[in-house]
Structure formats: structure tokens, C-alpha cells
């Protein structure tokens, strides 16, 4: 991603010097988020199998794989919506254990969902302000709400003014197009001051232009944030990400730079080859 600090770029490029294709290479020093030996089953179906992965501050990590590979399940485990059967998730060296999703969100583990989960009956500004208030102490305030609203609205407006929806803060979200709702969805996530931003197919269903707007918005706020991006648009992943992790049938088969991943025989066999055939 172009907005990456140079130091992060250097760090991200290290693995390409010595290509790593085995699972242990996914663990990096100074990880912001560390996932170790995470496994998850639903009944007899094993969805994740001993997955270990690190995410470093400032990097953009792509997470790709065929449908059912376990990508969203991994997001759900990291953000606390699911409990792993085994394994640990460490954020800034602290094990998250059974910490519920709201507490993880307040630490800075922020996510979006495959569907656009916006508040349709409220204005764009109120949507973003909802996320702003969640970060402060006034989220549950009853008395003195006017001041809390004003502060949150001002912060929300600043975010809105920096994107394609500038000047439309009063519009009802229900009246926006799908692409505009995805931008609101992203603004909500960015308003949470994320340390790690987990994006689950944010560009799905968007036109090329809308996808570009959305990714530009992420880039604007990327300097202090690590991004983990699930996307089926391979071009987007290879263009935007510093490293790419590939999941197949619940197993992490490779983590490396886009150049290495593109040539990786296991990845080509499991995902890229099949994708190329489909595209052909």
C-alpha cells in the first residue's frame, strides 16, 4: 500500500529475500497480533487446523483462499465472536482468552463484515458518531447527552469530510447506494481508531471505481494501523498487500510477499490455478 511507512515496507520485504513457504515463517518478531496454533471445528467439520500467523504494525496482510477455507472463521476468532478450540490469540503481547468482542474492539481490534452492517434509519453522521462514542466514556450516557452528541458529531464530520461522501452527513443511510453504504461501513470502522483493521471482503459487489474509492479511504488512515484484508479480487490483494497468507481447507499453506505467493506451487494448485481456470 502506497501510504505505508518506509520502515514497515522494509520489514515487509524481508521475507522475499529468503522465501518462506512453511507455516513457522508466519510468526514474526514484534508482532502486533499473534495467532498461534488456532484450531476450530464445527461438529465433525474441521474449519481451522493449527493456524499460526502474525500481523505487524503498519502492514497490510492479505488473507486469501477458496470459499470455506476458514478466513472469516479466523476473523471471528480474533475478534471474539467465536472461541477457538485450541490455540491462542495475543494482541500486543496480551493473551485475549475469553475476552468478549466489545472489549477486543475497545483495544483496537476492529473489523468489518461481509455484509454491510450499517444503521439504515440514521444519517451518515449519526452512523459514524455511533462508533466515535463507543471509544469514549459517554457511550452509555443519559444526562449531558447534548455535549457528547456534539463532540461525536464533530469527530464524525471530520471523517466524512475526508471521503467521497463529504457534504452528505445528513443523508439517511437507507437512501444511499450499496457502494456508498460500504463507504459508510468503512467510515464506522475507521472511527473506532483501529490498531488492527480486519476487512472481510470490503470490495465485494463494488464497481472498480467504488472499490478504488474504498481502498483509498483505508490508505488515508493506514499509517498507524495494521490491515488484514480478505478479498476474492486477486488483483486487489496483490496490489494492496505487503504480505499474503493463503488458507486452504483450514490450513495455512503459505505466508509471503505477493511475488513469492504468485509463484508458490502449493498456492497455484489450491487457489490461484483454479481461479485462473475459472477466469479463463
Amino acid at each position, binding site marked *: 500500500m502506497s501510504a505505508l511507512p518506509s520502515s514497515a515496507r522494509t520489514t515487509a520485504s524481508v521475507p522475499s529475500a529468503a522465501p518462506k513457504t512453511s507455516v513457522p515463517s508466519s510468526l514474526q518478531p514484534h508482532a502486533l497480533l499473534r495467532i498461534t496454533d488456532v484450531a476450530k471445528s464445527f461438529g465433525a467439520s474441521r474449519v481451522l487446523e493449527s493456524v499460526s500467523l502474525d500481523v505487524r504494525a503498519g502492514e497490510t496482510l492479505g488473507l486469501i483462499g477458496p470459499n470455506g477455507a476458514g478466513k472469516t472463521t479466523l476473523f471471528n476468532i480474533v*475478534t471474539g465472536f467465536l472461541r477457538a478450540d485450541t490455540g491462542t490469540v495475543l494482541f500486543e503481547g496480551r493473551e485475549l482468552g475469553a475476552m468478549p468482542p*466489545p472489549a477486543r474492539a475497545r483495544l483496537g481490534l476492529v473489523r468489518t463484515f461481509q455484509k454491510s*452492517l*450499517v444503521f439504515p434509519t440514521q444519517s451518515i453522521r449519526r452512523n459514524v458518531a455511533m*462508533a466515535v462514542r*463507543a471509544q469514549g466514556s459517554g457511550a452509555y*450516557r443519559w444526562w449531558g447527552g447534548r455535549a457528547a452528541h456534539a463532540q461525536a458529531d464533530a469527530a464524525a464530520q471530520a471523517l466524512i469530510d475526508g471521503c467521497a461522501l463529504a457534504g452528505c452527513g445528513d443523508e439517511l443511510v437507507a437512501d444511499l447506494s450499496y457502494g*456508498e453504504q460500504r463507504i459508510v461501513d468503512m467510515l464506522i470502522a475507521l472511527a*473506532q481508531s483501529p490498531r488492527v483493521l480486519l476487512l472481510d471482503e470490503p470490495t465485494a459487489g463494488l464497481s472498480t471505481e467504488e472499490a478504488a474509492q474504498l481502498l483509498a479511504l483505508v490508505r488515508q488512515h493506514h499509517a498507524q494501523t495494521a490491515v488484514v484484508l480478505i478479498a476474492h479480487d486477486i488483483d486487489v490483494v496483490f496490489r494492496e498487500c505487503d504480505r499474503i497468507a493463503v488458507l486452504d481447507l483450514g490450513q495455512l499453506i503459505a505466508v509471503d510477499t505477493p511475488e513469492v505467493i504468485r509463484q508458490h506451487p502449493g498456492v497455484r494448485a489450491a487457489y490461484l490455478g483454479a481461479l485462473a481456470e475459472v477466469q479463463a
Partner: protein
Amino acid sequence: MSTGLPAAPLLAKRRLGDKIALALVLVLALAPLISGDGFSLRFGAEILLIGTAVMSLNLLIGGGGLVSLGHAAVFGAAGYSAAVAAGSLGAQLPLMLLIGIAAGMLIAGIMGLVTLRSSGLFFLVLTLVVGQMVWELAFRWREVTGGADGLRGFPKLALGSLRLDTPLALYLVAAGIALIGWMVTRSFQQAPIGQALAGVRDQPIRMGALGYQVGRIRVTAFLVAGAVAGAAGAIYPFVNQYIGPNSVHWSMSAALIIMAVIGGVGSLYGGYLGALVYLFVQTEVSSYTDRWQLVIGLIFVATVILMPNGIAHWLGQRGVRGGRV
């Protein structure tokens, strides 16, 4: 940018809602001057108290998407508590309100905790079960509640040495509770906690991902709704000097929901309009036929078809379209 409702009509609609509510308050305040007979005033007090209970239910349904089929238990438990306490402690207004609010919050709090992780049909059934447990208590604990006969003969409402048992005094007390209840509920809905409740209604999963404690928001809403319904319920037995198990029965909860739908889900003053329509039909039509519920049913169906968002929203839309804001 797609075509959307500009901000002005939205704000206008909101202001119109306030104006209608203000007009309703003025009409209610002047009503004793128009019709001062005892029956009408007691009937007016009943509408105001039950309307307040419907408004508090509307906080849960409209504000939080929490359709409770046990809200009569909250309202009725407050009434029973006040009536029982009046027998031994006297029927002083502040004490009755305090006891009613505490009882309402207790039952609503239990309901909120029991239903913490449920939604949809399971939520509905759980609130029904808790409500029916309260009814069972009222119906079986004969020594305290009077069982099927209910409670009569408890002291009349008073404030110090001032007797509040006249129709006009009861009407004014009910109007005061309705007004304060409306202000409390409105301030809650407009505060960050009320916005968070609306967020839980629309996107509960996203709210968790934003860092909100969804359970805390829901229980708080239950407690506030319980306090408002409890205050109204505390005075309800003194209007006719009687409270019976029907006031906590699930069918009363269903009636409150019907009133909320007729008046307008999500509208605070809609609760009073719904209570007015329902109780008027109940009182007037039942003097001609036992089948007054058939008329209620027809009104309900007609409302859903012709005014799907209820009378209050219909009035609001007409006002905005007619440029009368």
C-alpha cells in the same frame, strides 16, 4: 450521490412530533375544564396511566426492537405492590410512586436479565413466561393479593393531609405522571444511551464489534421502561380503588402491544393515542355488546393496512406533506 431524504424534512418531522405531543398535553391539561364529570375524569386518568405504560413499552419495541409480551406484569406488579403497601404504610403519593417504580424496575430488570441473549420468538416467549409467573403469584397468593378477586378496600391516595381521591385530583396526578414519564422517556431516547439502543435494534452484531456492551444497553432500557411503567402502575389501583389479576395477565400485555401498534410503534405520544382508541372502544362498545374485541380487531387490521406505522406517524406525514410544520 443517490437521491435521499434531505435533512430538512426529517427535522421537520421530528419537530412536528414535538408539536403534536405538546398539543396533546394541552388538550389533556384543559380536558377537566371541558368535561368535569367524575366518570370522564377517571376514564381520562386511566387512559393517561395505561398510555404511559404503552409509551414505556414503546421504548422497548420502537427504540430497541424488543417486543415484550410481559409488560403488563411490570405495570401490574407495581400496582399490586402499591396497593399492598398502602394497606400497611398508608397511601402517600411519594411512597406509592417509590414502591411502584422499585417494583417495576425489579420485574423489568429480571425480564431483561432472563432475556439477555435472546431475540425474536425466544425473546417473546421468555417475556411471556416471566409475565405469567407474576400472574401466577398474583392469582395464587390469595392472602396478600386477594387471588382471583383482586384487592379492594386499601386506603385512598393522599399527599400529606391533602386527599387525592377525587376524580379531578386523580386525573391531575395521572397527567403529571404522563408528562414526567414522557419527558424521561424522550430524554433517554435522545441521549447517547438511547441512540445505542436504536443501534442494538438495527445492528446488534455490529454494536458488539463497535465496543458496545449490548446486554448492558438492553437491561438499562428494561430498567427505564420498568421505572416509567412502574410509576404509572403505582397510581392505577387508586383510580377505581381496585386491582385484579387481569392487570398482570398476558392478555393485558397483548393489549398494550395492540395499543402501541395502533398509536404508532416508535412514537412516544403514539402510546397515548393507542390507549385512547383501545380504551374508548372497550368502554363504549362493551356497553352495547360483549364482542367489543371484534371491533378492536377490525381497527387493528385497518390500522395495519391503512396506517402501517400507526396513527402518530400518519399524523406526522400529513403534517409534513401539508407544509403545516
